[in-house]
């Protein structure tokens, strides 16, 4: 982008713009595009989800507005815009106004590090992954503000539930990512995607594996367990069913959104769907190689790259389109799974949710970090780090040993944890009644 803007300004129009002006203009253009993409994703995802869930429940779903109901989200948006904006008399006006903004803004920031294709990451930060999750944790503040400012017990309850859930599920999510970061040795999202070339075996682990762009992390035991834990945590972060207790409409109306109407409600809705999109996207990025897939690397190698400045720019475009297609395909596939889960599972109770996060996911992901250490030791470390005994095995042999070892550890951890968690005595309703009401059980 920088090069294109530089070329247009300084070569075509000969303006002699300074470097930072060019940077500013190019980043502004990228930001504009991303700000357009986010609401479009939301519009598409609402339609997608409603049609899917309708199909799963043996209904038709929205099919009146436009061909196959395609314009239903647009109609909804128009309705949202024209509705009256109501602020409760007892509400804290400024905080009530600011809360939706604080919830929406972070979701927009998170687009900054999302890789859409080869060479198509808006900003390649050294700490992109950490940035993504740091920014996502800001929206918890917005939820708290919304819940408190509405002056409504359902809002406050919903906000408390939402924040407690987000804060506790951030830990297993981070721990499962830690395993991946240990393997790549980098927090940069571009590096993480680059690592996942290969064919079921990452070519970064074993040299000489054909690079078909299929060496995704989910194909090794460490990555698979991390993926499972992360996806469950992502469901909780995005407040999807089975973890949608913050806005459980049969219990607490609509949670923190109860007192919002019109465009402010629209902003919450936008934030929620954009966040869901981002969580699916980051799952695809970290565990399924983002834009990696057959053909992208080959096309990109023919285009203009730092290594190959004489390439043909059209190959960049082709690689970008193919990469973006793979990326969006994976992302929507995960969103499909989210909708599927919503169609299949009932909602958890608050205490079950907390139990599951703290007593099951966290120990499991901790074991996974241990497995990741073994994986790194066998695959990436040499005699200097004390893994000289593994060197005679050769690259593939070391990979195989690491695979078997981590698989055994992870399966054992899964079995043991599931048994322990399954045998934990739950408080029954009678006991709880005896506890709160002082009854003999």
């Amino acid at each position, binding site marked *: 982008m920088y090069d294109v803007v530089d070329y247009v300004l300084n070569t075509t129009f000969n303006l002699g713009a300074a470097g*930072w002006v060019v940077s500013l203009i190019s980043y502004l253009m990228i930001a504009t595009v991303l700000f357009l993409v986010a609401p479009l994703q939301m519009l598409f995802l609402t339609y997608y989800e409603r049609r899917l869930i309708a199909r799963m429940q043996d209904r038709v779903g929205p099919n009146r507005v436009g061909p196959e109901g395609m314009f239903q989200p647009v109609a909804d948006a128009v309705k949202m815009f024209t509705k009256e904006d109501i602020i409760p008399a007892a509400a804290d006006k400024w905080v009530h106004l600011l809360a939706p903004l604080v919830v929406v803004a972070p979701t927009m920031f998170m687009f900054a590090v999302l890789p859409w294709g080869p060479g198509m990451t808006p900003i390649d930060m050294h*700490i992109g992954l950490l940035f993504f999750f*740091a920014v996502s*944790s800001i929206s918890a*503040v917005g939820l708290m503000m919304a819940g408190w400012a509405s002056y409504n017990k359902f809002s406050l309850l919903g906000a408390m539930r939402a924040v407690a859930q987000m804060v506790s599920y951030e830990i297993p999510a981070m721990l499962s990512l830690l395993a991946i970061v240990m393997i790549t040795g980098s927090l940069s999202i571009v590096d993480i995607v680059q690592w996942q070339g290969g064919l079921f075996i990452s070519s970064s682990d074993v040299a000489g594996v054909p690079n078909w762009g299929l060496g995704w992390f989910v194909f090794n035991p460490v990555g698979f367990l991390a993926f499972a834990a992360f996806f469950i945590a992502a469901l909780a972060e995005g407040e999807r069913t089975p973890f949608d207790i913050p806005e459980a409409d049969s219990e607490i109306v609509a949670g923190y959104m109860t007192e919002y109407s019109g465009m402010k409600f629209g902003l919450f809705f936008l934030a929620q769907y954009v966040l869901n999109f981002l969580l699916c996207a980051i799952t695809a990025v970290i565990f399924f190689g983002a834009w990696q897939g057959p053909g992208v690397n080959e096309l990109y190698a023919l285009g203009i790259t730092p290594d190959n400045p004489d390439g043909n720019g059209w190959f960049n475009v082709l690689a970008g389109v193919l990469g973006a297609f793979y990326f969006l395909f994976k992302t929507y596939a995960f969103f499909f799974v989210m909708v599927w889960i919503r169609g299949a599972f009932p909602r958890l109770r608050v205490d079950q949710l907390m139990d599951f996060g703290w007593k099951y996911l966290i120990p499991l992901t901790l074991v996974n970090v241990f497995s990741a250490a073994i994986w790194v030791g066998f695959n990436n470390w040499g005699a200097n780090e004390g893994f000289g005994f593994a060197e005679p095995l050769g690259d593939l042999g070391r990979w195989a040993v690491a695979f078997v070892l981590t698989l055994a550890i992870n399966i054992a951890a899964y079995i043991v944890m599931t048994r322990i968690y399954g045998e934990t005595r739950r408080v029954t309703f009678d006991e709880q009644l005896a506890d*709160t*009401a002082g009854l003999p059980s």
Partner: protein
Amino acid sequence: MELLIQIIFFLLAALILGAGVMVVAVRNIIHSALWLIGSFFGVGALYLLLEAEFLAVVQVLVYVGAVSILILFAIMLTRDVSGQGERLLFQRWWLALLVAITLFAAVITPTLLAQSWNVVPPTGPIEPGQPTGIAGALELGRGFVHEFLLHFEIAGVLLLVALIGAIVIAFEERNRRRKVLTLAEEHELRKRREQTSDANASESALSAPGHPISQSE
């Protein structure tokens, strides 16, 4: 370029200090906490301006994402949010003001007048083959497992101690908890009471003194 950075710096300084003043001046403690978040955010942006990327992100993650949430939770778990009709400050708040202003003057005078800070920072690569002269996340991580290993472990132990300590301090024993019945429990209780009254068990546990429902009826 320099002007742009100066403008950004002044905006950030205004955000940090303005939000800081609001934290101590606002009556409503929730608003105070929200201003505090604003101040944290400004400090994070200042780190970004100072090219400490990793610290900026950690600042947002720890302060904005965790500490402020903790503070908001603590405020909501304790009553009296609005602080109406109460004194905001201690009686001798002017003494505190005096101390703060004196300290500021005492610190800032030698900083601005008696000391020259025109030090040219050493540039050049940290290690051969490294492009920039600024330590980033990679060097930080390496430092944590080499020169600062002991400090790192002590910090870990400190966090563990704080975790356990917070749980122990805030733990509420089951039998001291305020008793609020859920709808389902109330319903079940009424049903059982009818059953017991049918059986003419007048001295059932339900009518034990101190029971919330038996008291109300």
